[in-house]
């Protein structure tokens, strides 16, 4: 579905991605692993067109994404849950969800389903998003992305520093999505959970993918984890 070939990118003078390769097959869950500051978010921002592709090529469903504006890429069917949530503080929960609601790719997500997925959001539907707890904001961000009925869902640190309970809920939800055949690019630090979920891991180090393999393979080579995740 999505392919990145030796992509270079960064922030102005500071290069972050030095020739990154990534492949996301349809109906699979793919992960990006790596320590802080290795370029995971930068990868995401580049795929989304929020950072210019300085080298290499990104294609989505065969279409070249280089140089497209983010809204364009999003409409092609990429849904983003950005790192740090970025919910719209001055909008209510419900407004956050419907403001960008869309269904160009006959997905089956609508407000009701999101509310059944996250009952807590339903309770708070009228509350302004600024006053939500971190966990709730995270759910909101996920719901918001789902309501764009994306072909590819990208989650950047969706469980970042959330209370274990909430994490469990989110993992559950991701498993459900997977079972429904949703394609997902997952960035997270929580290996144990990911092992059950992810079909293919990508280990990223200093802006390059240095290792690719299944959860099984990852299990068999604990030294990898040690080497690249510093644990």
């Amino acid at each position, binding site marked *: 579905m999505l392919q990145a070939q030796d992509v270079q990118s960064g922030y102005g003078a500071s290069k972050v991605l030095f020739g990154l390769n990534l492949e996301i097959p349809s109906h699979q869950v793919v992960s990006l692993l790596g320590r802080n500051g290795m370029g995971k978010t930068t990868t995401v921002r580049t795929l*989304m067109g*929020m950072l210019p592709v300085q080298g290499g090529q990104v294609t989505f469903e065969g279409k070249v994404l280089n140089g497209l*504006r*983010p*809204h*364009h890429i*999003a*409409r092609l069917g990429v*849904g*983003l849950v*950005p790192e740090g949530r*970025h919910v*719209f*503080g*001055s*909008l209510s929960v419900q*407004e*956050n969800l*419907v*403001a*960008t609601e*869309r269904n160009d790719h006959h997905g089956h997500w609508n407000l009701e389903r999101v509310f059944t997925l996250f009952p807590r959001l339903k309770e708070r539907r009228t509350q302004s998003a*600024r006053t939500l707890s971190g966990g709730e904001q995270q759910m909101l961000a996920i719901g*918001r*992305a789902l309501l*764009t009925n994306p072909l590819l869902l990208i989650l950047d640190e969706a469980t970042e520093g959330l209370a274990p309970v909430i994490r469990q809920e989110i993992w559950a939800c991701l498993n459900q999505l997977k079972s429904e055949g949703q394609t997902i690019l997952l960035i997270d630090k929580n290996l144990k959970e990911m092992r059950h979920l992810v079909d293919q891991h990508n280990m990223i180090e200093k802006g390059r993918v240095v290792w690719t393999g299944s959860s099984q393979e990852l299990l068999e080579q604990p030294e990898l984890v040690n080497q690249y995740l510093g644990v």
Partner: protein
Amino acid sequence: MYMLVEQAMNGLQYSALLFLLSAGLTLIFGIMNVVNLAHGSFYMVGAFCAAAAVAATGSFLVAILAALVGAALYGFIVERLIISRLYHRDHLDQVLATLGILLFTNALVTVVFGRSPPFVAIPPLLSGSVPILPGLNYPIMRLAFIAAGVFVAIGLWLLISRTKVGMLVRAGADDSETVEALGVNIRRLFMLVFTLGALLCGFAGVMAAPLLAVEIGMGEKVLITTFVVIVVGGVGSVRGALLGSLLVGMTDSFGRAYIPIWMSQLLPPQYSDSISSSLVSASIYILMAVVLLVKPRGLIPAQR
């Protein structure tokens, strides 16, 4: 007493005018972060279009239409050609470029509509005046103006708070990058907001035409006051614009009514006249200075 009431009404009417102009400007300002000195020009364009329409058809309704279309269209063109290139420039560039637009528009209108001040009659059903208090008559046209202001305020409020576009506009003010990442063409949104702003100016123009002379440079006269309004109210929030309009409108109208009286009591005539006349004109700027010193970001700034 009557003086007080009448001034209050005049203040309201002035506030309505200011609100129509500032609502758009403050959005442009707050969301796109563009300082637009040419905003008043759309008001002028609207008024002249209205005048031309009346001259041609004699119908005020057509005039309204003409004003809206004319102003919006001109606004649209300006946005496409120039403003859209200024979004990422610093304020200085924006100030100067829009200053250029302002000068140009004045000349353009002169060329297109000629020099003699056109006439817009008060439509029959709005002419004359009605008693608002026993023994105090007030012009219907001005009442209509106030009504229009209220109407637009409500309309805008609904638009901003109830519609999807409104949500996106607010979301854009919060975090335009994420809005775009979720599939919204933020530039199109900007264009929309800008054109809407121009449209409101056009409306203000046609409403003001029967009351005020339609003349070159009528834009600048209110422009600066409009800026005062949004800076007082707080950049980016329509509520701020509303509050600001009321404050400025009232300050101005009461100031002009009462400052001379107080002054003449305080000072000997030879001074009081000149001093009060200066004070009167300066009053709203004093208001603004005071507000900014207490709340540097204005009374109700858009949260960000």
